[in-house]
């Protein structure tokens, strides 16, 4: 059991009529891993998550969750999953604690056990002082933490989080991340979707980048950066930028591994950023501003899925 993957998929496909949401993906998630699906909207992340959550039947391919078949054993699998959906679906007419206890009862926990779990989890997500309060006045971040607590109520083997911090303000996001990080430290297996690079870098041991229903890259954040980007990136801005960047790009040709002219700046991908900057000056170019930074997942992501907005 310990070595068996919690999620095992081969050639997994999901179609809705003519539309193919997931176009044949392979993946394995090991116990204790924090695994991320990264991708633009419509990449097929949520459809994959719904199949893993056993609420959507795969059209084709092989899928095993916790070693079981989601179609036949969906109920048994769900008993061991924790799900935090993209949209909070807390019950507005129940108070904060009742949202947890009611949910715990769906998993067959006794009343006493439900109550105990609820209080522990409220402590964990820092909502103990709101236990008797209504759900409606909670902030977005608090609601999300409550939903995460609810997902933990059955002490799940696998926690699914669909865009856990979308729509939250920066402070609230960090608080959610911090709690998820603690879960990870406890050894809970996390599977999450996100389109935030910083989130993926913060939380995921390993991730896949999805685009148009397919997995286009897989690895740890570090290995993805190594494979698909350079160690450093130089951002150059020219005073007369905007229209002239294509011309500047031609003049920069040959510096670093790759040049990406954007409307407002030019990105130079190079393993040694300072070297590249010296070369720029040597060619007699005088950018208005120069920034050398480490490559991030965002660079990988944009390289892989393109710059066109897919909203």
């Amino acid at each position: 059991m310990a070595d068996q993957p919690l999620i095992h998929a081969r050639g997994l496909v999901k179609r809705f009529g003519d539309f193919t949401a997931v176009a044949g993906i392979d993946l394995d998630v090991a116990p204790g891993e924090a695994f991320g699906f990264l991708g633009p909207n419509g990449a097929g992340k949520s459809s994959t998550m719904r199949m893993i959550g056993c609420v959507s039947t795969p059209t084709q391919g092989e899928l095993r969750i916790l070693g079981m078949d989601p179609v036949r054993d969906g109920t048994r699998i769900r008993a061991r999953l924790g799900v935090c959906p993209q949209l909070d679906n807390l019950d507005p007419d129940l108070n904060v604690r009742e949202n947890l206890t009611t949910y715990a009862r769906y998993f067959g926990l006794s009343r006493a056990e439900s109550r105990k779990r609820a209080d522990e989890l409220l402590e964990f997500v820092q909502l103990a002082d709101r236990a008797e309060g209504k759900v409606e006045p909670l902030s977005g971040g608090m609601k999300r933490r409550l939903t995460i607590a609810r997902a933990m109520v059955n002490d799940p083997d696998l926690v699914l989080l669909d865009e856990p911090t979308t729509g939250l303000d920066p402070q609230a996001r960090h608080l959610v991340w911090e709690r998820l990080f603690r879960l990870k430290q406890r050894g809970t297996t996390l599977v999450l979707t996100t389109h935030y690079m910083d989130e993926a870098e913060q939380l995921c041991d390993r991730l896949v980048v999805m685009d148009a229903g397919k997995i286009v890259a897989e690895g740890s954040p570090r290995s993805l950066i190594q494979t698909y980007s350079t160690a450093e990136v130089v951002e150059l801005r020219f005073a007369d930028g905007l229209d002239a960047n294509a011309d500047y790009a031609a003049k920069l040709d040959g510096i670093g591994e790759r040049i990406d002219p954007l409307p407002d700046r030019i990105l130079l991908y190079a393993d040694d950023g300072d070297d590249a900057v010296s070369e720029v000056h040597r060619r007699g170019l005088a950018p208005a501003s120069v920034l050398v930074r480490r490559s991030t997942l965002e660079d990988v992501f944009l390289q892989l899925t393109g710059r066109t907005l897919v909203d």
Partner: protein
Amino acid sequence: MAAETMRPLHPVLAVVERYVLLYRRLWHASVFSSFLLPILFLISIGLGVGGYVGSIEGVDYLSWIVPGVLVSTAFQICIGESTYPVLGDFKWVRAYHAMRAAPIRPADIVHGHLIALILRVEVSVVAFLVVVLFFGGLHSPWALVTPLVCALLVASVVTPVTAFAASIESDSYFALLFRFVVIPATLFSGVFFPVEQLPVVIRAVAYASPVWHAVELCRAATLGREPTWPIAAHVGYLVLWAVVGLVLARRAFKRRLED
């Protein structure tokens, strides 16, 4: 690990519990419609208008409409609780999706909702019967079976209406349901006057409505007489609605929560 053996013994019961909890939170909002309104109705129509009616089928008008008002109250609660709240739990609250992510099957939700509503209606039915007893509106110990008849009515009404609520996207369809189904079913199903008075065509509509069959059974019980049709025919018809409705509701929930 505890999770290994953790399987809900009674997922339906857990769903019922949620509804009971909700009812305990919100019961005060329904005091008027479930308790006070039927009594006011009895006073206005039963006593007020009844004074002019005198006796009907050998009893005073108040006693005659008691079972009608009883059944129509149960009917109203069923409709109210199976329309907006059901669509809301799919669309806005998304409570059903939350259940679905837990080891609760769509059919468990349908059954839990139905059982919770039967309990909910029985509370109102019993309260109503107690009050009516003091009005002298019950004429036979058979009145004790009216809660059972109402439970059967709940099953025959809640299931198809729930199926409807689970199949639509916009709540504006409920207005159509109220206006063209619920109101005619309340006004022309023998609640206020015998359906024999209706023109034959409209009478057929009354016969088709589960409300009329429940009214007939309850009236027979509170007045201690035989119903219009054989008891088995009335009961069988209500059971038919309940069974067909249950099949439809389970299918609609499954369709909406799975894809």
